[in-house]
């Protein structure tokens, strides 16, 4: 294995590992916000179903909640592009 790695062109190796790192960064950053947005929207829907007259207020707050939760995933997305070998 080590022998194989030593024969590789180091630039190519770095490039490949960078691509893997980008994938891991964005994939990892998307896990938490994915769960979080699900929770936010799910609870907003049950609130709207219980009290349809409050739907307007709940919707505004829901979009705010989504925006705050989503920011983390977007930081990961931007970070994935910033990473370079």
């Amino acid at each position: 294995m080590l022998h194989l790695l030593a024969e590789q062109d180091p630039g190519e190796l770095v490039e490949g590992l960078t691509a893997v790192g980008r994938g891991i960064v964005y994939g990892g950053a998307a896990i938490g916000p994915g769960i979080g947005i699900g929770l936010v929207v799910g609870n907003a829907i049950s609130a709207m179903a219980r009290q349809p007259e409050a739907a307007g207020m709940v919707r505004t707050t829901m979009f705010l909640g989504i925006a705050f939760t989503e920011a983390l995933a977007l930081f990961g997305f931007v970070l994935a592009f910033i990473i370079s070998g």
Partner: protein
Amino acid sequence: MILGLDFPPISHVVEWPTLFGGDTFGVNKVVLLMWISVALVFALFYAARSRRQLVPTGAQNVAESTIEFVEDQIVMQTMGPDGLRFTPFLLTLFTFILTCNIWGLVPGAQMPVNARIALPMFMALLVYVIYNAVGIIRNGPIKYLKSIMFIPGVPWPMYFLLTPIELITRFITQPLSLAVRLFANMLAGHLLLVSFAVITQALVTTTIIGGALPLALLIFLSAFELLVAFLQAYIFTILAAVYIDAAMHPQH
């Protein structure tokens, strides 16, 4: 090369050659689209104002429903009647961001202006300056800082943990996330459309039937991007309103 497809590198997708203006003040397609957006927004409200009628038609109709949307759905929901003074600012933000985002879907333009960080960053800095200025003018600098650093109703040892968090949130994370949210959403949408366009083109030239599915997805995603363009303009504006409101009325 992914699965035999030659995807363009990201620099080919968002970077445009300078059209005129030299090195320092070079104007490329993105800047040109931004200027057109400014002119369009200005023209809309100017046209709505110059031919006022009791029963609105055309431009006046669009302008009035936009103003009503910003007033009812953004200002009244977050700041209350006290924030109606900020309606002109928020209205400008909303219409300008929306026009800039929609360029990503206009054939021939195909580039959301906010997919480059410069404009979102500038607008986030503008909001940052405004909400801090409003907080300082309304409450005085000392009371404003105190309201950020010491949240009422928590036992005092918690302040060792909460004060740094609140300071970092207010002065670093809020403007940063405001800019990055708009930028990253528009960039992601743009890349998605580019990827599907590349896939469609590659599959149509090999098998025409195989190209139908990515083409259908491309059309669906374009409709989705229209929703995202609107939603991001709405979210940017409503967050600006929330931040101004938080600076104006600190939690006692």
